[in-house]
């Protein structure tokens, strides 16, 4: 017995001593310097390559684009601020050719001078099939990019009235591309060793931590925040714990988690976005694709209540994709009201009769359909799908939710099954936001992308208006065309668009004044939210 007792004693002593040793050692915890900001990122670190989409929307701290979105503007179209451009882009040849004058005196972090050759090289690499860029869909309309003196000239395959609003992407130095034997972007040295013109340079990259330091030779005024430490933690709850324990100064969190952080220590920032969530109603499904059903479901969901309860107020109800951030082009009068009685009437008139089980049917066809949502994305997709199912049950339409990984949903499945989609990847022009959702040229199988016109919606009037607006040079006439599109959509909707989400960030108060956030696209991350313009933060 004694020997067993001894072992037990020894172990107890060992365990106690381990824990006794730790607390004093903790005294030297970091919080390195007052001008350091620690951001905890759920996305993995690295891959700092413009060719594979890093800084696609001007959200890089290392690279810069020709233009950047103006901060703090949410109730009209935000303007563009020239960054590497020296002034606005100039369209010619009926919006088919766009010329951008460039800033001089800018240097990359490797000391080389910025010039038109860098813009040309970056776009050449984006368009070159050998680099297998993931960004090709964004630049499909570009035919060629050439230097013209100190400016850059973009020639498009077909006219685009708002092409200038897309030039936000990161520019890399021409030295980074060897066009004689260009390799895939995934093998590029830029992934780990980025070279940009931006205010920060990557000084350390570990799997769990990246450090970006302010450049002493930055062309504009040197930032006051001299170090950004980005820590990678995939789990959202763990990120919240790290913030609470003081091992981070900010992160992006789900609304419920974010609300547990309070002033004055923390600031919760809810940023309006162009990131929509809506349900496709594909023509390939005899129920969901029926015009009466499409119209009725749009009247039967209580979007305001979804925003209030499902999104905890962090979002804006929306039914026609156009929204206040598109300024005068948005007609709030064309939003679908919440009117379940009207919805029932529409279904009654169309011959959808309530059956004994409370679900409507027409000619033996039950008004029921599956809805696919992606459980591996944001939680809002599932919660909004559940809310929609509950609202639609009340008018006699049954939704069966199916969780499926987005990677395993084929184009054929998209064509027959409603999907809870999210979108708004390039939202800074109305055309970029809605053309692909509504134009019937994408309704045919094999045309356009899998997500384009997810409902396979065909409306010749809307097609004509979209095509006219796309090339219309007069902005007043464009406004009118987009308002007409909403009127048409109100009569014959394509999808069950529900809301624009807010992205929610939590940030520790560190005594800096900061710029407002921008209207954010579908993507998010440490380059957005309060950190979008971290180079402008000022000590109070």
């Amino acid at each position, binding site marked *: *017995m004694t*020997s*067993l007792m001894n*072992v*037990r004693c020894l*172990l107890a002593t060992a365990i106690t001593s*381990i*824990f006794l040793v*730790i*607390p004093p*050692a*903790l005294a030297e*915890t*970091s919080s*390195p310097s007052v001008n*350091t900001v*620690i951001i905890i990122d759920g996305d993995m670190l*690295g*891959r700092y390559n413009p060719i594979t*989409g890093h800084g696609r929307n001007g959200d890089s701290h290392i690279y810069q684009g020709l233009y950047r979105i103006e901060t703090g503007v949410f109730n009209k179209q935000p303007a563009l601020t020239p960054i590497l451009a020296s002034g606005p882009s100039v369209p010619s040849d009926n919006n088919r050719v766009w010329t951008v004058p460039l800033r001089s005196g800018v240097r990359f972090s490797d000391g080389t001078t910025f010039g038109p050759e860098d813009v040309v090289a970056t776009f050449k690499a984006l368009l070159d*099939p*050998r680099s*297998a860029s*993931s960004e*090709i*869909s964004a630049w*499909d309309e570009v035919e060629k990019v050439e230097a013209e003196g100190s400016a850059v000239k973009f020639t498009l395959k077909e006219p685009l009235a708002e092409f200038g609003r897309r030039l936000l992407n990161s520019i890399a130095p021409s030295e980074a591309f060897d066009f004689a034997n260009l390799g*895939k972007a*995934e*093998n590029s040295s830029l*992934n*780990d060793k980025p070279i940009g013109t931006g205010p920060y340079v990557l000084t350390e990259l*570990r*799997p*769990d*931590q990246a*450090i970006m330091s302010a450049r002493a030779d930055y062309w504009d005024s040197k930032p006051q925040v001299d*170090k950004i*430490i980005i*820590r990678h*933690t*995939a*789990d959202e*709850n*763990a990120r919240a*714990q*790290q913030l*609470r*324990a003081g*091992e981070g100064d900010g992160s992006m969190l789900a609304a419920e988690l974010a609300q547990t952080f309070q002033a004055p220590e923390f600031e919760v920032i809810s940023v309006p976005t162009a990131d929509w969530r809506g349900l496709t109603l594909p023509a390939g499904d005899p129920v969901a694709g029926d015009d009466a059903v499409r119209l009725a479901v749009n009247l039967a969901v209580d979007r305001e209540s979804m925003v209030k309860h499902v999104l905890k107020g962090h979002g804006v109800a929306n039914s026609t994709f156009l929204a206040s951030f598109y300024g005068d082009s948005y007609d709030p009068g064309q939003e679908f009201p919440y009117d379940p009685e009207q919805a029932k009437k529409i279904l009654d008139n169309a011959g959808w009769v309530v059956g004994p089980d409370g679900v409507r049917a027409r000619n033996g066809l039950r008004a029921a359909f599956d809805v696919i949502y992606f459980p591996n994305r944001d939680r809002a997709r599932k919660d909004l799908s559940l809310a929609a199912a509950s609202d639609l049950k009340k008018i006699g339409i049954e939704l069966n939710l199916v969780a499926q*990984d*987005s*990677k395993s949903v084929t184009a054929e499945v998209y064509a027959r099954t409603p999907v809870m989609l999210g979108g708004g*990847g390039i939202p800074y022009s109305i055309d970029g936001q809605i053309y692909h959702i509504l134009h019937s040229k994408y309704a045919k199988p*094999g*045309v*356009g*992308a*899998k*997500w384009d016109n997810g409902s396979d919606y065909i409306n010749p009037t809307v097609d004509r208006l979209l095509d006219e607006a796309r090339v219309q040079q007069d902005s007043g006439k464009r406004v009118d065309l987009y308002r007409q599109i909403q009127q048409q959509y109100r009569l014959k909707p394509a999808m069950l668009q529900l809301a624009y989400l807010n992205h929610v960030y939590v940030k520790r108060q560190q005594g800096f004044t900061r710029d407002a956030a921008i209207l954010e696209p579908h993507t998010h991350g440490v380059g957005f939210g309060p950190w979008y313009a971290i180079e402008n933060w000022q000590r109070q």
Partner: protein
Amino acid sequence: MEWGLAHGMRSKIGRGNSVGMLHERWRRRRHDILVMVARRFGFLIPLLVLVTIGVFALAAVSPYDPLDAYMDGRAGELSIAQQAKLVTELRLDTPWYLTWWEWISSLFRGELGISRSYYQPVAQVLRDRLPWTLLLGVTGLMISVVVSLLLGAIAGFRPQSLISRSIGVLTIILQATPPFVLALSALGLFALSLHWAPTGGLTYPGQPIGFASTVRHLLVPGLVLGVTQIPWLVLSLKDSIAEVLTSDAVRGARVRGIPYPMILRRHVLPTALPPFIALVGARLPELVVGSVLVETIFAWPGLGSALVRSAQSLDFPLLTFLTLAITMLVLIGNLLADVIYVVLDPRVDADA
């Protein structure tokens, strides 16, 4: 007093005897064991090749779309023509056996390839992560073995006692607790409430990697990983001890008046240990694969999360290499356990 003396004397003799016995047993069976090891290694190479073929073949029928993974979930934005262009450029349309052949021939040239999910050479992904995986895994293993030995022995030696029953209940609760709940609770307790440990990562933000800070960052994730492995081991040890305790040999020893503690140490434990060791060996790979959740919550940059990521992206160079590594771990873990088993237990033949 008298008992103490006798016990001390006997235990000294006993220790000398048992070491001598093991040495003798090893000498006698060395040839058998070496043959067994050689045979297993001979078997290893074709098996590993088969495993690589399996990975490529299974991936071909997996529902995951490698293009969507490459596009970070945005493949839906691509038109059919653009998709076709990317598929050709990334060679995603190559039949799986050709992809496999290309991969294995470049492996024999010493090239591990590029990981598509990390945009880094596979060698670099391994260099960045393997040491941390091993560190965490070994820490977890040691904690689980030590704690399970102790709890299992206590519970097994006195099967009817309150403490034994408490251990039983505790292990069943642990077994039923999802690892992420355990990890988040440990994080809340040790990092937030007690401030004994940091919340995650390899270092405090912005600090370079150093010995002291690594130990501090390793402790809680190591503990959680160890604790998740405990229930199996404790229950198995408890059961095998209980089985030996009721055996005729033990009853005979007690009849002969050998002190009970000595019976436990000299007879029961050695007989009950081999199955325990075999189980530890069999659960070695669990420490790599089972660490995924611990890694995710404690921001520990290990290979567990890399395995999941590479599988979801059909990142063959990395996925296959990690699968190979885990297969080897399984085989070597089992082999090690078997060798120890053969040395410890005279009743077992080496690969009969």
